[in-house]
């Protein structure tokens, strides 16, 4: 009897007591999760209406965010996408609180570490977003300016500016996340240093004449004007 009491009944009672203690936490947790899902859905609709009222889609199209989403395979409008993000953020926040309500030490520890890292992720995402936007903006500005200056390699100039800015933002984002901090910075410096050095050698030392001919032929189309047929048209 004592044996049965110790081996089966006492552990069962203990487990039952723990379950009784855990049950309110579980119910609270489930309740929080349900509230989160409902609130997330409601806020998604509310924010969607607000974003549409302030014509966020038009602004997003203008700065290139719409294009960015389309390239990433997202078919939603920008308003719908951001509203969905807001909704999921609310659900996620409630889910985290719900998990914490369970009071499981291992999960709590993991969550603490996750929350300490979360600001870095957020900052990195913002850096990448701005990197993409600035890259597009300045890339397009460089492209238009180069075309108007008559540079035949305008497309290359535009892409170079755009990619450089984006790579710079990726480097900054990775540094923020603490991924290969030094390696990324050094790689970035080596790549760009290498490009500059290669250009210097190619145009300055390796092929002075070739570079001169190349520049004459390809870079400056304006040189061809000085053949006595300069434009004198007054545009105004």
């Amino acid at each position, binding site marked *: 009897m004592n044996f049965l009491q110790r081996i089966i009944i006492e552990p069962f009672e203990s487990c039952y007591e723990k379950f009784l203690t855990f049950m309110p936490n579980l119910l609270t947790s489930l309740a929080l999760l349900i509230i989160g899902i409902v609130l997330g859905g409601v806020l998604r609709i509310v924010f969607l209406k607000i974003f549409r009222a302030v014509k966020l889609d038009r602004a997003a199209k203008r700065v290139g965010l719409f294009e960015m989403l389309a390239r990433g395979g997202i078919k939603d409008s920008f308003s719908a996408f951001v509203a969905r993000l807001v909704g999921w953020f609310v659900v996620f926040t409630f889910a985290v609180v719900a998990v914490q309500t369970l009071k499981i030490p291992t999960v709590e520890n993991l969550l603490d570490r996750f929350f300490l890292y979360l600001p870095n992720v957020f900052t990195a995402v913002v850096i990448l977003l701005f990197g993409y936007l600035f890259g597009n903006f300045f890339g397009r500005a460089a492209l238009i300016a180069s075309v108007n200056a008559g540079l035949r390699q305008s497309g290359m100039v535009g892409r170079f500016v755009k990619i450089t800015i984006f790579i710079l933002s990726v480097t900054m984002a990775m540094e923020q996340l603490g991924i290969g901090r030094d390696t990324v910075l050094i790689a970035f410096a080596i790549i760009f240093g290498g490009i500059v050095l290669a250009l210097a050698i190619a145009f300055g030392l390796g092929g002075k004449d070739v570079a001169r001919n190349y520049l004459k032929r390809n870079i400056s189309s304006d040189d061809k*004007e000085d053949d006595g047929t300069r434009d004198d*048209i007054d545009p105004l």
Partner: protein
Amino acid sequence: MNSVVEREDIQGRINEIGQADILVGVPSYNNARSIGHVVRAVQAGLAKYFPDRKTVLVNSDGGSKDGTMDVVHTTTIDDFHSILLSHRVESFSKIAIPYHGIPGKGSAFRTIFEIAQALNVKACAVVDSDLRSITPEWIELLITPVMRDGYDYVAPLYHRHKYDGTITNSIVYPLTRALYGKNVRQPIGGDFGFSGKLAGFYLTKDVWETDVARYGIDIWMTTTAIANDFRVCQAFLGAKIHDAKDPGADLSAMLYQVVGATFDLMEEYQSMWKRVSANEAVPVFGFTYEVGLEPVGVNIQRMIDKFTLGAQELAGVWRSILPAETLRFLKRLAHAAPEKFRMPDEIWVDTIYNFALAAHRNALNKEHLLKSLTPLYIGRTASFVIEAWDSSGPEVEEKIDTLCGVYEKFKPSFADRWT
């Protein structure tokens, strides 16, 4: 920015003069070589045609380094007998000051308007400081319609080389005519006459931090006068010949400022231009005559190359502005042989209206949008030069008139899309 008349030195000068009847403004920037002739012509014009009026010449300078303002101070007419019919009775004063604000022609004009208001003048005129063809008669022609006939705004009318004034002829003139219904042939001519009342009205507008402060000032002055029902006329001034433009001047910046100001005005006066369905002639003062014009050098191949480069590289930008059909045509044109290079009026007008709509809808950053128009404008200019190669001046005018007709024809559908 505070008004220039609040400056102590200017205030002193204004108090000294008190009140004036006529003011002539000359904006300048490094024009020491040509401004002497302009000042002499203005002084002679005022002395000859308005001897009994108190007159002032204001040079509003953008910080010239070549002594432009010194030339203004020292220039005077030694022998009035050769040009005068009567002796001057009233005084003539000169003010030469550097303007403040954004560097540009518009800021220079603002200073002129402020001094005009402070002196309570009845009539004003502004003339460019690089003019070589200005005569004393220009002053009479720009001022008399205001002083005698009660007009508020006198736009210039010149004989120009058939290839000159390409922004005027292909965009600003036909667009202004189609939108506002007034046939002002040189809306951005640069030399204007206007009443003191209109100068005061200009100063009530808060535009001095925009493109109006730069090359946008001319179209802004003309459109503001038309759209606010001021009495507008034109004065035939003969030939317009001026110093060669600075070769470093950026065409795309000039185009951006002028077209940007034109599009901004379309926003401001949309209720007005949507109502206009016909255009009317604007009275012309002065005796019209034929003049000889200096030849203009043109490099068509370079223009076509620039258009082709634009069509190759900017198609992605234009895709968000132009209809697919127009874009396809432009791409085909980029591969056309130079002798077959033609951009029809319909394509060009459709392009301009679509750029206006894109600006209205904020489809793209405004500077990017308007600067991406440059290769298209150059392509259109090349096409026009080829088309008008063997045409006389009057024949070219007919072509421009036909273009105006296309702008007018397309206007209703454009107005419908402008929501």
